[in-house]
Structure formats: C-alpha cells, structure tokens
C-alpha cells in the first residue's frame, strides 16, 4: 500500500484509560500517564482486584507489597520528569542509594569482584581509563573506581553536581522499599486525580469489528468505558483473548531459569550500599539490603534443581550472609521472554505481561517507566493506528533486547570452562552481544547508540570485569610516555582516596 492510500479512521483523543492491576507498577504507570497527559481531559482509573501483586522485580507471590526493588539510575530521570523530589524519598529512608554490585564465584579465576556505577571514564590524553589500564598491564580496575571502592568500604558515595570526571563520574542506583514506594506512587496518583476501583473484573466487552476492549464490568456493579487499557493484571485468563494475539519472543533457551524462590527478612541489620549476586550450582542468588529489610532470591531451573533444593540453597546463603528471620519462602514460575507487540489493539501490556527477563539493574520498574515514556512519545488516539503502534513496539523491543543482552553478560556469560549448567559461552549468546564482546576483547571498544537503555559506560564497566582476556587498547597510547601514564594513575588513586576520606559511612 502506498503512503497516500491510508484509510480514514476515527482517531479522536483518548479520554478513558483503565489500568488493571494496582501494584507498584500499576500506580507508577498511573502517575506517569496522569503527569504526561495533564490538562488533556483524560480520566485514568486503576482497578485493584484481589489477585496477587508484583513487587516491581517481576516477583509476585506471598510477599505481596514486601520486598526491595533495585533500580538503575534511570529511576531518577523518570522522577525528574514526574516532578518527584528524590530527596524526600531518600531522607525518609524509603530509598537507599546503591553504588555497586558484588559478584561471588562467577569466575574460577576471580572469586569476588565489585562493579561500580561509573557513567564517565577519567581520561589520559583524551583516552579512556580502561584503555590506559590495559596499556599499562593493570588487570584489576577496582582501585580506580570511586564508586566501586566506596561500595567495598561501605561508604555513602554521592556524586557531585559539577563536571568533575571523578567526583561526578558515577550514577548510583537505588534500592526502594516496594511497599513504601507503592504507597508513595499511589498517593501521587490520587493527588493527580487518578481514580481507584477496588473490585474484580466480571466481564470484558470487546468491539465486534475491531476487537478493541470497549468496556469493563466490575463485581461491584460499576462499568468502565475503555479507550486504552493498560494491562498489569496477574490473572492470565482474564485477557487471554487479546494476549493470545501477541507475539512472544521466547528467551528460555538463553535464560534457563524458570523458577525463582524468594524470601524477605525483617532484620535489625543495616542497609548496604550494594546488591550481591552469588553463583551457585543451582542458579544465581540475588541479595538486596534495605534498613530492617533484606531480600533474597534464587533464580533456578526446575529441570536441574527441585524447589526443596532451591530452598536449601537459599537458606544456606542466608545463613552465610548472617541474615536470619526469613519470612517463609515463595516459589514463582517464570518464563523468560517478552512480547514484541506490547501495544496490541488498544491494550498496552506492562510488567510481567510485557515480559520477564530475570534479574538485572533494569528491573520491571525501569522497563515499565521507559515503556510508558515511549508510549507518551507516540501517544495514540482512539484508533491506535497500526503504524504508530508498530513504531512504539519497535522502540520498546529495543529496550527489552538490551536488558536481555546486559543480563546475559552480567550473569550468564563466562569465558572459562563452563562450571554451572546455566552459564553460557560466547557462541551461545545472541549475535549482537557476541559482536559487542568481540569488539571489546579485540580493542577495548564499545560502540555508541542513540538513547540506549544500557549506556556505553555501563557496558564498559561490566565488560571490563567479564572479558578478562581482552588484549587491545587504543594503539595511539603506544606513542605516549608510560611514566606519564603511571603518574596519571597515581594521581587518580590519590584523588579517589581524597574523595573517599570525605564520604560518610553508609549508615
């Protein structure tokens, strides 16, 4: 069909948005849409049924509204768009900055390493630090990472607002208390005029010709007209007629974990400025630490590990980490993959309905926030025009693909002989990720992309720990004086030590 043969459709402004699923993701979506559509005569309703809720990490189970959400620095950008003051959240202890991740037993060669959260690389003669380290034969980058060292020393690392490449060169992530954050978002949504219905959905009416969702009837007798439905429901059967029409990108061959077991612990222990990942024979365990609340999740595959073994493994790790008072164990079945058409007809899938990619700094919360931003960029009219929807889905898919690739690199990729069933060698990874690893290995380089989910610096930070046998660096360095290079590193170390001496203990 040529461009001039577009059919005429009624594409009036969307007036009725219904968000089904009132967990932290549902309320976040509500706030973002209410802010993004402010002054535009749109009514937004959040429907809260009695089904299980998500805690923002793709978890949903007995620990409804408990748990910790670990989020990348994208969260602050999102808050800025919404006019949310991060200081308020941080001051009340509802959010805790997190300057790094600790990895245990992921490499036979290096038992433990810390990955900071650099967003810019200090440079020597305009050449980035990691090239300089490689040039000078220095294998361990940790002493040159301010955020990494602050993490190791349990200090509160706060970036400065200036342009200094050391003191301002990192972006802390954040741990959120899921329950408090949800209350915060719900309050913000209600303040913005979002309506709240606490009732289950009794009936969904579809438009006969278009198949669009037209109306919801609730168990309390209310009916809701729908122009756009945001599907955050955990009742799979509810929207099956429309979900069956979505295309699912199955990632199970890449991410083997189809179960996770989670527990939270109310504890007297303090928060910590890092999250931890432990590689075990049964899978990957993730630990997050908030004041008086620690959470632990083991991601595993039922084919290799029984639920009982998983529970034993998680209990052993909790014991090792001296975390007690675990509040029971919750097993969840998961399918790694994502929908390639999150917006289908007038139904926009978010959260687990959009996809699930295991654990990474790009939690469901971050993916949701980016997806809603993209939805607002390409906000549809009532007709949800097909090409607009296709473009929106294309942009969202790019994020999911990057999140998948980063997660695979961070947790699954191993250069050494495979130790655990869930590890992958380079040839098992998607081609684009293979190319990224090969390029870094060859010359320490990472290509740039436009508006990526995973920034170039984040890739570098992770690649320099994961690709241990990279042999290349900027060739131009060979024309420079190595003594001066060493002096640069010495000065950098001193500068970092100076900064660290000013940081307060994390508590």
């Amino acid at each position, binding site marked *: 069909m040529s461009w001039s043969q577009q059919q005429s459709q009624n594409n009036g402004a969307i007036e009725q948005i219904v968000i089904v699923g009132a967990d932290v993701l549902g309320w976040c979506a509500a706030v973002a849409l209410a802010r993004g559509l402010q002054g535009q005569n749109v009514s937004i309703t959040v429907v809260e049924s009695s089904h299980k809720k998500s805690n923002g990490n793709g978890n949903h189970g007995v620990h409804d509204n408990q748990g910790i959400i670990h989020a990348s620095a994208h969260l602050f950008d999102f808050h800025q768009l919404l006019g949310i003051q991060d200081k308020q959240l941080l001051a009340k202890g509802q959010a805790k900055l997190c300057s790094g991740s600790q990895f245990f037993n992921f490499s036979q060669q290096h038992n433990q390493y810390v990955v900071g959260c650099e967003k810019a690389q200090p440079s020597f003669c305009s050449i980035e630090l990691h090239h300089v380290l490689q040039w000078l034969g220095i294998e361990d980058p940790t002493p040159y990472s301010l955020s990494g060292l602050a993490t190791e020393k349990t200090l509160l690392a706060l970036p400065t607002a200036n342009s200094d490449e050391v003191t301002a060169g990192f972006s802390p992530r954040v741990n959120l208390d899921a329950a408090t954050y949800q209350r915060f978002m719900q309050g913000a949504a209600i303040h913005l005029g979002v309506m709240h219905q606490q009732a289950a959905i009794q009936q969904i009416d579809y438009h006969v010709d278009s198949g669009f969702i037209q109306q919801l009837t609730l168990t309390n007798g209310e009916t809701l007209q729908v122009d756009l439905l945001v599907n955050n429901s955990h009742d799979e059967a509810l929207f099956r007629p429309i979900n069956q029409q979505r295309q699912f990108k199955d990632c199970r061959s890449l991410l083997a974990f189809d179960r996770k077991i989670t527990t939270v612990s109310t504890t007297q222990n303090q928060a910590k400025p890092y999250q931890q990942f432990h590689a075990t024979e049964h899978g990957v365990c993730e630990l997050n630490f908030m004041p008086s609340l620690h959470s632990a999740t083991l991601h595993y595959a039922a084919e290799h590990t029984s639920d009982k073994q998983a529970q034993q493994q998680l209990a052993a790790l909790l014991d090792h980490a001296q975390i007690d008072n675990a509040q029971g164990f919750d097993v969840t079945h998961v399918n790694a993959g994502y929908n390639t058409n999150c917006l289908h007809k007038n139904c926009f899938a978010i959260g687990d309905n959009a996809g699930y990619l295991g654990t990474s700094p790009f939690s469901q919360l971050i993916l949701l926030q980016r997806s809603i931003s993209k939805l607002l960029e390409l906000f549809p009219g009532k007709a949800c025009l097909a090409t607009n929807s296709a*473009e929106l889905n294309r942009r969202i898919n790019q994020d999911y693909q990057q999140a998948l690739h980063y997660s695979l690199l961070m947790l699954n990729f191993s250069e050494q002989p495979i130790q655990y069933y869930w590890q992958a060698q380079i040839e098992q990874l998607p081609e684009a990720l293979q190319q990224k690893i090969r390029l870094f290995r060859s010359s320490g380089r990472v290509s740039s992309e436009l508006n990526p989910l995973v920034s170039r610096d984040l890739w570098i930070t992770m690649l320099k720990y994961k690709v241990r046998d990279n042999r290349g660096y900027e060739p131009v360095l060979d024309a420079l004086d190595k003594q001066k290079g060493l002096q640069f590193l010495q000065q950098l170390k001193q500068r970092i030590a100076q900064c660290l001496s000013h940081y307060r203990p994390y508590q």
Partner: protein
Amino acid sequence: MQSANIENIVIVGGGTAGWMVAAAMANRLPQKFCRITLIESDAIGTVGVGESTIPHIRQFNETLGIDEKTFVEKTHATVKLGIKFNDWAAIGDSYFHPFGEHGEITQGIDFHQYWLKARAMGENHDLEEYSLAAMAAFAGKFPLSTQNKPTVFADYTYSYHIDATAYAAFLSEYAQQRGVKRIEGKVVTVEQHANDFIKSVTLESGECISGDLFIDCSGFRGLLIDKTLKTPFLDWSHWLPTDSAVAVPCERTGALKPYTQATARVSGWQWQIPLQHRIGNGHVFTSHFLDDQQAIDILMNSLPGKALADPRILRFKAGRRQYSWQKNCVAIGLSSGFLEPLESTSIYLIQLGVSKLLELFPDKSCHQAEVDEYNRSISQQYELIRNFIILHFHVSQRNDSPFWEHCRNMPIPDELQHLLTLFAESGRTDIGQFGVWPAVCVGQGIIPKHHDARLDAMSNQQLAQFMANHRQKIQQMLSTFPDADDYIKEAIARGAA
C-alpha cells in the same frame, strides 16, 4: 597484548576526501606513532564534491582547531541555514528544509503537531514560518549566535557553502604542516600479501610505497577497494535513478542567499550554491530520460549569472560498497559509495568515515571485530541518508514526465515505507533518522491525517495564541540579526586583522 602497531598509513588519492582524511589523521595520530603518506596525481582531476555542507563540518573543523574566520577566508565560504526546494511537490511550490526543528516541543508534543491542529482549524501559515532558520534565510539574515538563545530555538544550527577544491588545498597545507608526506604520482600496480592484505602500491615513476593501512580515496575508480580487493558494490539505482550531473560555476549577483537551492527539473533537479565569489550550479539528471545536451541546455538557460566555465559532465551510480573496510584497506569518499548531493551529504560521509576509523583505529592485524563494527556503522548511516533522499523523489506529486512517474511509482525500502506511513498517518517521526522529516514531508504535500490527539484538549483560541506567539518571537529576533553578507565580510575582516 595486541599485535604490532600501524607504522605506515598510505592514502591513495587527494581531493576533498584524501585531504580530509590526512588532516584528521595528522591531527589525531602523533608523528612518532606513524607516518602518513598521501599519493595524488595532478593528472587525475578531482570531482570536487560537496560545495554544500551540513552542520557536522563545524565539529570537524573544531576538532582540527580550525577557527571559523580562517575557514571562511580560505574556502570562500558563505553561511547556510538549510535548503530551499523549488518545484518538488508540484511546479510552482517551494519549501524550506532548515537545520533544526520547527518551533518548540511543548508538553512533550512535537511542535509540528500543534501546526497540524492549527491547520485543521483553518490557519494558513506555512510550517516554515515557525523555523528561525527558514525565516532568517528568506530575509537574507544570519542568526548571530547559537549561544544563550531562547528555548524555542534551541535546536537551531547552521553550516556553510564552500569551495571544496579550496578546502582540499587548505587541508593539504594543514596536513603537510603536521607531517603528512605528499607524493605526486599515479598508482599503476598494487601488490598484496598472501592473505590479500595490501602490501604496497607502485607509481608510474617506479617508486614503491608500502604501508600497513591503506585508505582508498581514489574516488569512483576505487583503485584498492574495487580494482584490487574486488569488494562488491550494492547498486541502489533502482531507488535513486539519477546517474549524471552537469556542473558549471557562474558569477554571483545580488545579495547572499544563505541557503542552497534545489529546483526539481523534468528529469532530475538543479542545485544553486552561493559562495563569496561565485555561484556553483549543477543539474543532476537521469540519462535514461534526458540526453546530455538537453541537460546542459536546461542548466545554462537557468543560470542566475554569467557562466564562468564550460559545463562539465559527471557520471555516477548510486550505491555503496558492501564493505567500506576490507582487509587493511578502508574506502572513504566516492570509493566507498555515492549518494546524490540533494541533501549535501558528501563531505559528511567523508567526515563520518574518517571519524569512525579513528575511533576504531586498528593495529596491523585489522581485527575482524573492528572491521565489522566499522562496516555496520557506515552502512547504517548510508542507508539512513539514502532513505531520506529517496523520500524527496518518491512523494513528489509531479506527473509531468516519465522520470517523475517512475519516482512516484517505484517500490521503496521497507524501512522508508514504515517511516513514511508513520508520518502520513499521525505525523510521528523517529529522531534517529537523518534530516528534518516534517519539513520535507509537509513541504512535499504529505499532511498527516491525524494530529496528536492530546491537542484536542487545547481550545482553538489557546492554540491560535500559542502559534502567534511563536511567529512573533521569530520576527522579533530577525530584526536583531545582521545580513548574511555582512556576517561573512566581518568574519574575513576579523581574520585579516
């Protein structure tokens, strides 16, 4: 450990591409790191492409430490605020493709969406009336500074019209001052290693010049990338059917127009590029539909001043090398590919080629990972520009010749079809694309069927006020700008002082 570093770089071919590459490399690579040799033959002419440029050239100059005053003086440059397209949508129509977006993004909604709604309610101001660049261009003015400008024009920028031959000469001097060795001579044979890497080139004089990395700037001949390495050429002439151009400079008359003009003709289009001392003219056409003499006649009969030389015919084929980098040879400039000059991208593609090469600068092994990344990145840019150029031809409503019939009805790349439909449907664009899509699409008569529905909440009165404010701001700013001619004269005067 990486393998041995490149010690000798050999650039085959001078011209704009050769000397831009040489200058950028001499600036970036210390002399003790490697030697750079450029071979050029006075007997082989240069195409002298790219008199009209896009804003990226300013970044290139800045990287090389070339200030604007020197640049303007040495290259006889004038400022450029965009391109005025005449007779493209239909004979008698015109539109302006500015550098930078129109108006201001308000409440997260692109400005052209407001314009679409205003148009739907009966307002008849053209989209370009909301572009500072377009309005300054039509008034012959030059916005003095892009610093401290109001938000509404944050995206505004500018470029230059230059004498490309003079630019090459200037960069030649620049590069040689920084250690680049120029050798006059014609390459007659190319020697290769057993692994097909290029080992050396031998000149007519018998001199043999060996190297570790070869840059093919030999233009359409593709002496290394094509003749030696047999790299396939991806032919895009089914999408871009023009294959010839006739060029002639003429005297400049009247005040400077700070923009390029591209006027659609019966079987192609004609450019007009004002420099300080002359106007560059050319007629791009399709030999299948028009013979050379007809093309020459069309050009010579529409020159804005007295011709300063005889018309010169050029032949080309649209497309690109499947791999711009093969083995230890990187093709930059016309040897890498050709896209007709409608959007002034020739120099940009050279700049992109050398910048990317320096970003991925190899050692002697030329690891495949760098080669793959370079080729991926270059081909992506070629395709973005290609699609944008095809757009101009395909959406024309002209039906006055077989050429335009062909362009309107030809199949187009899928990605372009998607973007075109996206715009035609709802005025949406992808910021990752090349060029200002709303300017070209609306200019060519594609008025999206739907504006952003969120604007339905804005009353007609509010919108009318909003649009009027934009126009008023632009008019207020225009009155403070100097004439484009005066800006150039002042720049040269400051340079001389």
